[in-house]
């Protein structure tokens, strides 16, 4: 059945109707038809991250999951061009064969959703723009997108960017698409910058005694010429026994003490320079060997996977907040969170993952105010089943909302694509 006939048939009346266009032309035909009929659609990939954002109000669902496969991989040119819903696992696998990787370290949201890995597709990643622990050094997903192709809300196939890193030809729409939650285009093709994998890694663990000290360490780490590529703070949170148990079981490593708060920082590179950097950093942070633990590469790699899988919040039934603030305000936030909410800090003091108990939902409002006062923002990544959406799950001010509406209008004038997924009116 052609898309057109299908849309016009009785099945179209069924709100559970899911379309699976097979290529860009079919996506274009489908959206053009929906545009004609003023009939909005939810856009999904492999459904691994569709729980993030507001629920869309639409009669249709368009799954782009069949638009998958690697189009062109040029290791020597440091790029890979893929169909939009190519699974992250498939991309990582082929890159790994050439000792390359997606440097932004994709977060695996499968663990918080269902307790097991489900990385989903590259289109999903680009649409959310959530990078992992290496972000503060290498940039976010948006910094690794060289170009894309997709279908706007009128059904037109559009493209922007290319395969080269230096490109200032026309507006940089790749950036705009990153983090747009499928509200501007249905992606069909994505070109990513890839980078060589580092030879090895080591992780050093410090056991700080107070919040000021944590941020003093973070500041020294981010001010050093001996570059690090990850720094987290995992608090003990002694009031919540379940969290302590979970934390101790997730971060159970031979060389890591349990039942304590700790900072972990990662150094990557060739083996000689790793030792040199750790030597320099110990000096700059005034650390003695007796104060620290070191995780070798066999412990270091799984450690950062567990961080990026958000395993301490595995299958959480509460609200999970992702909050980003300038690091200078971090110690104040830690003090507030201590004994109130379970959390951990990534990106060398900038990124907070905060679990807000479903019985304390009203606190989200206070936390959001704090995010704004500190010059940052928050997103409620996962909501509890009781969440009443009284507090918007995204952070936006009036002017940015007004501009976002205008931008949405220019891509999708009838609000066909994922309406309301981010903000009302967008």
């Amino acid at each position, binding site marked *: 059945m052609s898309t057109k006939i299908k849309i016009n048939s009785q099945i179209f009346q069924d709100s559970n109707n899911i379309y699976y266009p097979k290529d860009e032309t079919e996506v274009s035909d489908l959206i053009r038809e929906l545009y004609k009929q003023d009939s909005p659609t939810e856009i999904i990939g492999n459904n691994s991250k569709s729980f993030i954002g507001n629920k869309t109000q639409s009669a249709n669902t368009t799954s782009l999951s069949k638009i998958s496969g690697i189009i062109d991989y040029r290791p*020597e*040119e440091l790029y890979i061009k893929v169909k939009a819903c190519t699974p992250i696992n498939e991309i990582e696998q082929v890159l790994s064969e050439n000792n390359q990787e997606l440097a932004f370290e994709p977060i695996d949201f499968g663990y918080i959703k269902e307790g097991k890995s489900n990385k989903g597709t590259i289109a999903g990643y680009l649409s959310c*723009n959530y990078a992992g622990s290496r*972000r*503060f050094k290498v*940039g976010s997903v*948006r*910094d690794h997108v060289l170009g894309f192709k997709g279908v*706007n809300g009128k059904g*037109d196939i*559009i*493209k*922007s960017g*290319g*395969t*080269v*890193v*230096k*490109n*200032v*030809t*026309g*507006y*940089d*729409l790749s*950036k*705009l698409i990153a*983090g*747009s939650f499928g509200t*501007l285009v249905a992606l069909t093709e994505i070109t990513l910058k890839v*980078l*060589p994998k580092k030879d090895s890694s080591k992780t050093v663990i410090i056991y700080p005694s107070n919040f000021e000290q944590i941020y003093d360490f973070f500041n020294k780490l*981010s*001010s050093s*010429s*001996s*570059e690090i590529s990850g720094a987290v703070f995992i608090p003990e949170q002694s009031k919540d026994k379940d969290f302590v148990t979970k934390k101790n079981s997730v971060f159970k490593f031979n060389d890591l003490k349990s039942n304590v708060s700790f900072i972990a920082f990662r150094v990557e*590179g*060739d083996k000689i*320079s790793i030792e*040199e*950097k750790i030597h*320099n950093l110990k000096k700059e942070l005034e650390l003695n060997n007796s104060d620290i633990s070191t995780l070798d590469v066999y412990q270091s790699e799984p450690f950062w996977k567990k961080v990026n899988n958000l395993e301490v919040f595995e299958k959480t039934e509460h609200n999970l907040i992702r909050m980003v603030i*300038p*690091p200078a305000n971090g110690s104040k936030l830690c003090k507030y969170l201590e004994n109130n909410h379970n959390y951990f800090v990534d990106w060398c003091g900038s*990124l907070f993952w905060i679990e807000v108990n479903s019985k304390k939902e009203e606190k989200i409002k206070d936390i959001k105010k704090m995010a704004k006062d500190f*010059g940052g*923002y928050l*997103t409620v990544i996962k909501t509890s089943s009781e969440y009443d959406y009284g507090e918007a799950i*995204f952070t936006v001010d009036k*002017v*940015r909302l*007004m*501009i*976002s509406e205008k*931008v949405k209008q*220019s*891509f999708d004038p009838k609000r066909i694509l994922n309406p309301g997924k*981010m*903000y009302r009116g967008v």
Partner: protein
Amino acid sequence: MSEIALPKIDSSILNRKSEIVKKLSKLTNIENVLSEADELRPYETDALSVYTQTPLAVVLPENTEEVSEILKYCHSENIKVVPRGAGTGLSGGALPLQDAILLGLGKFNKILEIDYENKCVVTQPGVTNLGITHAVQHKGFYYAPDPSSQLACSIGGNVAENSGGVHSLKYGTTTNNILGVQMVMMDGTICRFGGKSFDQEGYDLMGLICGSEGLLGVVTEVTVKILKTPEVVRAALIGFPSIKEGGDAASEIISSGIVPAGMEIMDKALIEATDNFSKAGYPRDAELLLIVELDGTESEVNELIKKVEAICKKNNCSSLKLSNSEKERLSFWAGRKAAFPACGAMAPDYYCMDGSIPRGKLAEALLEIKKLSEKYELPVANCFHAGDGNLHPLIMFDGNDKEQLRKTEEFGSEILKTCVRLGGVITGEHGVGIEKRELMCEMFNDNDIQQQLSIKKSLDEKNLLNPGKVYPILRKCAEEGRVHVHKNKDKFPDLPRF
């Protein structure tokens, strides 16, 4: 260069000049408004100096509120506005229009805050790129993007053009190194995107503004990320007997997993020109010269240098010299940085092109350029940011010879079309401006361009902000058969054409 089409002049605006100047003088200090012929002359062109136009008036506001009031006024009175930073742009993005106000940001020249704890600097847009590094280098920090004009170009202009530099493979361009901007829209609305934290949520409007060439808003404040200066920086100067061997070595360095801080290639014509000019001590027998810069900790750099040496020897390099001091490293760069003036000394005029190509296509591109050089009987020298694939052929000509002028322009246009054919783009870092406007159709089809115009329309409905730049005037594009307009029927009748 040949004549270019600009938006139709609104004669009613020209007739109201004195009234407009009077009103502007109320919105800012009277001495910030320039309207006499001799005052306007310095603003007639930017660094693409073959094109000149006299603006209606120049206004140099001193703060964001004044910018907002001026834009609000121009918006309500339908007066076009051309924003300008330091005027160092090479694509004519700040070319004035006769019926437009030129809005100069030169008085926005202060650094507002240096925040080491959050590793950022909040600055006004008129501060120079290098000025930011100067303000933080005593603490061992720097601002990474380093366009060749960094001594003079403003950070606001860098945001408008998304400027790069020789280190952009490892450290990215402007868009990867800014955290936030304050901007005024054409209707006077003041807005803020981002701040001191990473990755604003929602639409990445900062990412949209960066590289929008002054078409979507006027940037009045920028927050940039600062980085710690690397412990050790060393460079290698490597000569090759052929273009192919040098190009292959550059490709192999990248594919082996090394990310150099900078990697530059110069062809024989440029080696000779720069060595004559700057006495840099380059290997004059080489057909191609590769400069590779590596940074990091001491052992990291030593390790990388060993790898680079091995790759270059494998590819039959004819000479290899490593810098053993900071002075020597800078001397390696001296010739490369003198490339443009060196060409200037060889011919009355030179025209600098700016395309990007996949790194591996370098030999093919250079060969093609050589053929074109013979075809047009004009000498050309090439430098290439080999790390990121950005190619700068410099065509030498005599601007007083009209025929040479015409040929130069055609030659340049063919080079950029070659870049697109090889899988690259028409501008890597200079921007489209007016210079490459008509070539946009080489890269984008009707849908792509209409989507971009549609964004422009949504943020500047009356098309008053820097009109006539970046996007082809449809008539010309259609005449050249690149945009498909069937039977004179426009696909988007509701959209303005500029």
